[in-house]
C-alpha cells in the first residue's frame, strides 16, 4: 500500500475522529501533507493541536502493518479505487477500509446492487422472506448490500450465499458496456466495526463467507470494535452503494428506516415488504407503503421491476452510466444493534425475534439463527422459563 493511503488510514484512525472531522482534516491537503501537519500541530482544522504526535511515521507504520496483516485496503475519496457510486454521495466518507475480495470493489459500478435491510428483532416471516429474497437475487445475478446485523441482514446474506457453497464468485456475466467478463453478483457488507471484525459475536461463519465471496466495507480501521454511533453512517453508506433499498421488515423506528430515508434523499427507489397489520415488526414497512414512500414488494420480481424503473438506471442507457443499483434494507433498530455485549444476550435477542405466532420447529430456529443446537436449545428453554416462549408438540411460538 502506498504512503498516501497509509497516511489517509492513519488520519482515519486518530482517536476521537468522526467522518466530519476527517473530511475537514483531508480537505485542501493531500493525505501525506495532512498527516504531517496534524502530527506537527500545524493543521488549520486542528487549531488546539489535539492530535500532535499521533500521526507520525511510527503510527503510520503500525497501521500499514495492521492493514497488511488483516488483508485490508485503504481507499481514499477522490483517488483511484474509491467506489464511484459512493463518491456520488455528498456525505461520502473520506476514507474507507475494505476487506474480502477487494478487487470486486471496481465491480460495484457494474453490478446491480440491492440493499436489503430490516430489523434485528425479525419475525420468522421476515427471516424467511429475507432469506428467500437473498437467494433469488443471487441467482438473478443481483448483488445484495447489507449490514451483517442479526435478523433480516444476516438472513438476506445467508440466503444470498446459499446457492453458491463452493463458488466464492457467485455469478458472472459480460458487461454490456466494456465487454469484459465480470462477476455480476456478490455480497457487500457495510459494517460499523473494522472490516476484519466479525460482529455480532457468533456470526463468524457468515462474516467469513461474505469475506470470501464479496466485499466488506467500513469507515473504521481493522481491529476496531463497532461503536454504536457508527451505525448511522453505516446505514447511509449502504444506501449510497446501492441502486435501490428494500426494507424487508421494520418497526416504526429503526436503522433500516434511516437507510430508506437516505435512499429517498439520494433519489433512489425504495421498496418495502408488507406484513401483517398487527405485527409490530412490519409496522415500519406498512407505513412506508401507506405513505407512498416505498413501493410494495412481494418478491424478487417486484425488486427487479423496481430496479428497472430506477431513473438512474434507465437514464444510464443514454448517459452510458454503467450500473444499476438495488439496495435491500433490513430493518434493524438502533436498540437491537446496541446490545453488542454478552453472546447469550445476543442469541436471546435473535431467537426472540424469530419467534412469532406461527409455530417454528427447533430445526427452523437453528437454521434461521445459524447457531449450534445446544446454544439455541438453552436459549429456548430459558425463554420458556421467562414466559416469553412456549413449546407445543416440538414447535415454538411466542407467548
Amino acid at each position, binding site marked *: 500500500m502506498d504512503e498516501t493511503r497509509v497516511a489517509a488510514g492513519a488520519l482515519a484512525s486518530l482517536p476521537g475522529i468522526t467522518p466530519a472531522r476527517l473530511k475537514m482534516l483531508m480537505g485542501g491537503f493531500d493525505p501525506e501533507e495532512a498527516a504531517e501537519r496534524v502530527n506537527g500541530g500545524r493543521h488549520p482544522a486542528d487549531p488546539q493541536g489535539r492530535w500532535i504526535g499521533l500521526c507520525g511515521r511510527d503510527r503510520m507504520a503500525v497501521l500499514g502493518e495492521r492493514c497488511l496483516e488483516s488483508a485490508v485496503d485503504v481507499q481514499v475519496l477522490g483517488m483511484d479505487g474509491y467506489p464511484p457510486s459512493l463518491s456520488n454521495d455528498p456525505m461520502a466518507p473520506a476514507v474507507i477500509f475494505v476487506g474480502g475480495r477487494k478487487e470486486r470493489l471496481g465491480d460495484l459500478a457494474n453490478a446491480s446492487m440491492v440493499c436489503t435491510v430490516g430489523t434485528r428483532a425479525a419475525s420468522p416471516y421476515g427471516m424467511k422472506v429475507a432469506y428467500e429474497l437473498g*437467494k433469488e437475487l443471487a441467482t438473478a445475478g443481483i448483488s445484495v448490500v447489507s449490514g451483517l446485523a442479526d435478523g433480516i441482514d444476516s438472513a438476506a446474506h445467508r440466503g444470498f450465499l446459499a446457492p453458491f457453497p463452493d463458488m466464492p464468485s457467485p455469478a458472472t456475466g459480460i458487461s454490456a458496456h466494456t465487454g469484459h467478463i465480470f462477476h455480476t453478483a456478490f455480497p457487500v457488507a457495510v459494517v460499523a466495526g473494522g472490516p476484519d471484525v466479525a460482529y455480532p459475536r457468533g456470526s463468524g461463519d457468515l462474516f467469513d463467507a461474505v469475506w470470501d465471496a464479496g466485499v466488506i466495507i467500513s469507515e473504521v480501521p481493522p481491529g476496531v470494535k463497532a461503536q454504536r454511533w457508527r451505525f448511522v453512517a453505516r446505514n447511509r453508506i449502504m444506501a449510497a452503494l446501492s441502486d435501490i433499498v428494500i426494507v424487508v421488515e421494520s418497526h416504526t423506528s429503526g436503522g433500516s428506516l434511516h437507510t430508506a430515508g437516505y435512499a429517498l434523499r439520494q433519489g433512489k427507489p425504495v421498496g418495502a415488504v408488507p406484513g401483517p397489520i398487527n405485527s409490530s415488526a412490519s409496522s415500519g414497512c406498512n407505513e412506508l407503503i401507506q405513505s407512498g414512500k416505498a413501493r410494495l414488494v412481494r418478491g424478487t420480481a417486484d425488486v427487479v421491476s423496481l430496479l428497472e424503473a430506477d431513473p438512474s438506471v434507465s437514464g444510464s442507457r443514454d448517459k452510458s452510466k454503467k450500473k444499476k443499483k438495488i439496495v435491500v434494507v433490513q430493518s434493524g433498530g438502533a436498540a437491537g444493534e446496541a446490545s453488542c455485549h454478552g453472546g447469550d444476550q445476543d442469541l436471546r435477542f435473535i431467537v426472540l425475534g424469530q419467534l412469532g405466532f406461527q409455530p417454528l420447529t427447533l430445526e427452523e430456529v437453528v437454521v434461521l439463527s445459524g447457531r449450534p443446537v445446544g446454544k439455541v436449545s438453552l436459549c429456548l428453554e430459558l425463554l420458556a422459563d421467562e414466559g416469553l416462549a412456549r413449546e407445543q408438540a416440538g414447535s415454538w411460538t411466542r407467548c
Partner: protein
Amino acid sequence: MIANVPSAILLGVDGSPVSVEVHASNGVPGFSIVGLPDAAVRESRDRVRAALLTSGFKWSSKRVTVNLAPSAVRKAGAALDLPIAMGMLIASEQIDPEAVTGCAFFGELGLDGSLRYFPGVIPLVDVVGTPKVVVPAVCLDEASVVPAKEVYGATSLRQVVDALNGGGGWVLPGSSSTPGQEHEDFPDLADVRGQPVGRRAVEVAAAGGHHLLLIGPPGSGKTMLATRLPGLLPPLTFDESLSVARIRSASALSQDGAYLPSRPPFRAPHHSATAVSIVGGGSTWLRPGEISLAHRGVLFMDELGEFDRAVLDSLREPLEEGVVRISRVRVSAVLPARFLLVAATNPCPCGEGMTPGSCRCTPRMRERYLARLSGPLLDRFDLSVSLAKPQVDDLLCMVPGESTERVASRVAAARDRAHERGVSCNAVIPSWALDQLAPMSPDALSLIERRLRSGVLSARGMDRIRRVALTIADLAQDGALIGAEHVAEALQLRAARSIVRTDER
C-alpha cells in the same frame, strides 16, 4: 462296538455339544435314532445309508442304535449326518477309531456322499471341545474364523475317510474363497444438506447408544439420516465381530465371503415383514430374526406405526435387556439383540401434520394412526426429533455438512469417556449410578427441577435426559459436570415425541 463322535447342534445362535453314540449289536438288523431327534435328524438314516453305499462302504447288517446325548435336548437340522455316518463306520469297523480321536464332525450328506452347507457353522465349531473339526468344504472358510481350532474341509464322505486314513488330502482354508474382512462403504454424512437438528440427533445417538425416533413427512430425509448412523459407530472389536459372525452364520446369512465384519451391521426390515423374520423363530430351525442380525449395530424401522403390533410389542424386551427370548414347543432360546434402534414415522397418515394448514387428516384419523405407537415403546427413545422436508433449492445449494469421518472421531472420543466410566455407552448407565456418573452443575439441576415441577418431565424421563445430556457433554469434551446447555439440548432433542404422544415427555 460303540462309537462316540463329538458334534453339536444349533440352539438359536449358540452351539450345544452333542455326542453321537452309535452302537452296533447282533440281532435283527435295524436302525433307530434316539435322543429327541426332529424330522430332519430322523431322515438322516436314509441319507447316511445312501451316502455310505455310494461312497463304497458297507451298510451294517447289525442292529444299529444311534443315541444323541444329552437326550433331553431336542436335536434339529441335518448337520448330524456326517457324525452319524462316522459313527456307523467306526461301529462297523470300517475305519480305525484311533484315526478320529480328538476330532468333531459336522455336515449334511447328499445321497452321493457329498458334503453340503448347513447353517450355524461358526457357533457349532466354537462349542465343541475337540481341537480338530471336520466340516464340509463349503463351510470351511466360515469355520476358520473361530479362534484356536484346527479346521479341515472335505467335499465328500469319501474324502473325509481317505484323509483320516492318511490316504488323501483335505481341502485347505482359503482355497475356495477368501475369508476375512469385508469392505463396506457407508454413505457419508456430508451428503445430508442442512438439517442441523437431524444431523445432531444422529451424532448424539451414535455417541451415547441412544435410541432415536425421527418424525417427519415423507421425503424429509429420515432414511438418509438413518443409513448414515452405522458409519458413525466405532468399528467392531474382535469379540463383537465374532458375535455378529455367529448370528449371521446361524441365520445362514454369511455365505458371501464376509465372515468377520469390521463395521456394525445395519438392518432395515420392511414393515410388511413377518413377526418371525423380525423377532426370530420359525418352524424348521430357530432362525435369528432381524433384531438379532442387527446385534451390535443399527436396526432401522421405517414407518414404525405400520409394523405388526406383535412386532412392536416384542421389541420391548430386547430394548430393555439386549436379548430376545424365543420359545417353541420343545426348544427355547435366548438370542442376542443389543441394537441401536432408529425408527421413523410420519406425524400423521398424510404426512404433513407438522406444517400448519397442510394436513388433510381428521383428528380421528390421526388418533388411530398414532395409537399404534404404544407409550411404553415410545418411552424407549431417548431422542426424538422432527424433520421438515427440505426445499429443492436447499438440497441443491446448501454447503456440504460435516463428513462422517469428522463426526465419527467426536463419537469415538465421547465413547472413550463412557468406557472410562465403565460402561459401553451412556444409554446403558443404570438409574442408580447416574448421580455418581453423571453429576450435574447447579444450573443444570435447577433447569431439570423446573421441568419436573411444571410436569413436562417425568421421573423416568429425567433419567433419560441425564444420560443424553451426559453424552452431549462428552461430545463437547466438557468438564466433569453436566451443564444447563447440555440438559437443554437433551430436552430439545426429545421434545418432538409430544407430536406422537401428548401426555408427557
